[in-house]
């Protein structure tokens, strides 16, 4: 009997310890005086991501921080006006920018925002390894910075064509929180558990991987909002619970690339969906360097053209994306400043076959296609492309690559002219998202660290260089047109399609919802002026 009693005792002890740990402290009572709540996603799981890598991907980075200057929804800088900088001036030759800071602005902790903070932020960012490419290329062109009273002048050593764009995305940070932080360990700083920003909202409560609330920053120079924001956790721009949360009324603002999400939300009452065409191109990188087996099958431009002619992209996109994505004819997405005379490589099996015959295509060749997305859609797409190519006698096999992608995908050959290739694939399915058009093309220049696939081409080098050499809008457009035409003819990559982003808003936002732009970047949101209904 004693034994049995002991057993029961032990068992109930186990139970109780469990209960004790489970029934943890109740969260403190929030003043439930009917403050309106804006629900969105992208909340932190383990930490807040720094705004320097993906400046606008996360909702919190948009609203916790101010940038120096501000862009409109098309990411064109609004002249003269700014956020932290009340005004700014660009020198005649574009080699220097002067930012005049607002008077009396403070960080969320009440300390003044000084030109020293800004200067320090830029200098520190130059040392941080994970930095947005446009910000990175702009900052590496900076030669010196001078402080004069409440203004900061940035001088460049060489022309930085995207400098203004970079400053619409770069959020300065308060220096004092980073005194002992190694730039390589920037993201690991304590600061990112509950960042102190400069924007219209500040952090109220953080329950990591659970929920996070932001409240209006009462001293914000542009005024204070009368609602709070609640973030549900999700990683970056893919939120697997997007639809469920939206259908449950817990998503007043959000964006997604997934057409399935959008299809599920169509017809949900009170939700508005806007399609935004953004700079996001899905493509095949083609490895034209010779490999161990000899010359690359893709070195011949006729083969590359044939591969594109063999794909009925419109039909594929209609099937897979319900027609929401557009077939691509260039890395550059469709926009007003793109040449209209590009070859669209409309689906033409006969032409593809003829080109392959001209190129003496060896039917035994098997193209090795790699991809790194783990979603079903990618696999479906690969299966479809495989079947299209098989109709013109081209065999391809596809596989997922994992692990050290930097070396698997982007190891550049020692000899950038003749190779041999330092990577093993023939074709890599990937996406290019770009803030600036330069990002699409600069990587193909001779000697770029990540050019694992395109042998040195003096014509291409010259065309790319031309786009980076001027600040004159007409000259830039012309340079890009020349580059795009050359790309269209030469097909050093196979552009496949342009994928839009869908911005989802609820009817709860009654006033002041921003003009629809690319939700992944920062533009003039004026979120402090939005109004929420019930």
């Amino acid at each position, binding site marked *: 009997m004693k034994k049995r009693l002991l057993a029961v005792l032990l068992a109930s002890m186990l139970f109780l310890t469990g209960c004790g740990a489970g029934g943890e402290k*109740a969260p403190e009572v929030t003043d439930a005086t009917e403050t309106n709540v804006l629900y969105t996603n992208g909340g932190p799981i383990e930490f807040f991501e720094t705004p320097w890598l993906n400046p606008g991907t996360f909702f919190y980075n948009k609203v916790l921080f101010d940038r120096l200057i501000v862009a409109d929804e098309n990411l064109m800088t609004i002249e003269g006006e700014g956020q932290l900088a009340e005004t700014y001036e660009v020198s005649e030759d574009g080699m220097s920018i002067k930012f005049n800071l607002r008077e009396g602005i403070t960080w969320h902790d009440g300390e003044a925002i000084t030109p020293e903070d800004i200067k320090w932020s830029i200098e520190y960012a130059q040392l941080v390894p994970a930095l947005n490419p446009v910000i990175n290329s702009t900052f590496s062109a900076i030669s010196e910075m001078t402080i004069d009273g409440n203004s900061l002048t940035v001088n460049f050593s060489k022309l930085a064509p995207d400098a203004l764009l970079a400053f619409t995305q770069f959020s300065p940070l308060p220096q004092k929180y980073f005194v002992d932080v190694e730039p390589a360990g920037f993201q690991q700083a304590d600061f990112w558990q509950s960042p102190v920003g400069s924007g219209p909202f500040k952090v109220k409560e953080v329950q990591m991987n659970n929920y996070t609330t932001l409240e209006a920053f009462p001293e914000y120079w542009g005024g204070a909002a009368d609602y709070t924001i609640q973030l549900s956790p999700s990683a970056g721009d893919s939120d697997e619970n997007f639809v469920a*949360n939206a259908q449950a009324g817990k998503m007043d603002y959000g964006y997604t690339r997934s057409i399935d999400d959008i299809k599920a939300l169509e017809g949900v009452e009170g939700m508005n969906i806007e399609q935004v065409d953004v700079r996001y191109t899905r493509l095949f990188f083609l490895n034209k360097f010779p490999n161990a087996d000899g010359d690359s099958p893709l070195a011949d431009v006729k083969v590359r053209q044939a591969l594109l002619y063999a794909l009925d992209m419109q039909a594929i996109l209609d099937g897979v994306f319900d027609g929401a994505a557009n077939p691509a004819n260039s890395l550059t997405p469709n926009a007003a400043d793109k040449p209209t005379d590009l070859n669209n490589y409309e689906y033409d099996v006969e032409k593809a076959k003829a080109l392959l015959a001209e190129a003496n295509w060896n039917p035994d060749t098997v193209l090795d296609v790699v991809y790194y997305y783990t979603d079903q859609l990618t696999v479906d797409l690969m299966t479809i492309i495989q079947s299209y190519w098989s109709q013109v006698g081209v065999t391809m096999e596809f596989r997922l690559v994992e*692990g*050290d992608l*930097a070396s698997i995908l982007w190891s550049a050959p020692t000899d950038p002219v003749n190779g041999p290739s330092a990577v093993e694939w023939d074709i890599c399915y990937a996406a290019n998202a770009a803030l600036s058009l330069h990002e699409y093309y600069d990587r193909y220049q001779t000697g770029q660290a990540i050019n694992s696939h395109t042998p040195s081409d003096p014509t291409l080098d010259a065309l790319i260089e031309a786009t980076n050499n001027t600040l004159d809008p007409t000259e830039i457009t012309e340079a890009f047109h020349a580059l795009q035409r050359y790309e269209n003819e030469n097909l050093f990559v196979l552009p496949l399609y342009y994928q839009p982003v869908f911005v989802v808003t609820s009817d709860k936002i009654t006033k002041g919802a921003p003009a629809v732009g690319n939700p992944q970047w920062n533009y003039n949101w004026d979120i402090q002026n939005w109004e929420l209904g019930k």
Partner: protein
Amino acid sequence: MFKYIIKKIIGMIPMLIIITFLIYLLLEMTPGDAVSRMMDPEAIARLSEQELTAIRELYGLNDPFIIRYFKWLFQIMQGNFGTSITSGVPVSTIIGRALPATIELAIAALFISTFLGSVLGVLGAIRKGTMTDNLLTFAGMIGVSIPQFFFGMVCILIFSLNLEWLPVGGRTDPSVVNFFDRIQYLVLPSLVLGITMTAGVMRYARSSMLDTMNKEYIRTARSKGIPEWRVNLVHGFRVSLTPVIVLVGFRLPTLIAGSVVIESIFQWPGIGNTFSSAIRASNYNLVMMIALIFVFMVLFASTFVDIITALLDPRVKLEK
């Protein structure tokens, strides 16, 4: 008695060390390291050799594998669990905020499965061979045969989206004041996890009830004219107590595996959720610590079951 328990617990230590070593080895063999998971591949490819070495140095990734393992082990012995590579937050903090959620879910699921399982099992045994018994067996079988995630998603579809009775996921929200406000969040995940575990308990309870009912003293009780319901109630209760104890141990691995899947479906901010993302990120310290907890729980439970069985079974002598 104490000697026995202490011996058992000390016996767990070498096992824990071997297992942690294996996990570390596996992590080491996983293609790519923490840096290659943490940063965009293109950004890494742009870095110079020195820059990359400096970053890896910062995370202590440059030492050979064996040295890193022993460094880790040494730190653990001193009670220093290290920090998460991705966020720099102490591992203990991360686990500290995820563990209560998982324990809460596990206890709720254990409670549900134990209650349902033993009540239905005893009922099945009393009504042995009848329609009720068959139906119960059949229902139990359905419970174990449906893929957990599938069951979970259908539940969300029905109860959260169509009927709008319960939240789609998460554990709490800012308006929650006390535990009872939060129960609505707990209902679906714990039911799904609990129901999939019910069948096992039910089967166990049914057969042990049958065993007891055939025992001499029950027959005696019956012959003495004690009402049938009392016989059933008293012994049914006693029978259901055993599965609670024994099956806590047996269900633990199910609970752990289940927590990963269930937590991912219901956005439950627990340890399973943390664990799968830590593995994907090669977040060494975090993976090691959670794995250690899992292994410890399994070992502890099996030791616990050993002890309990020893206590309950008069044939097993403790002074071994």
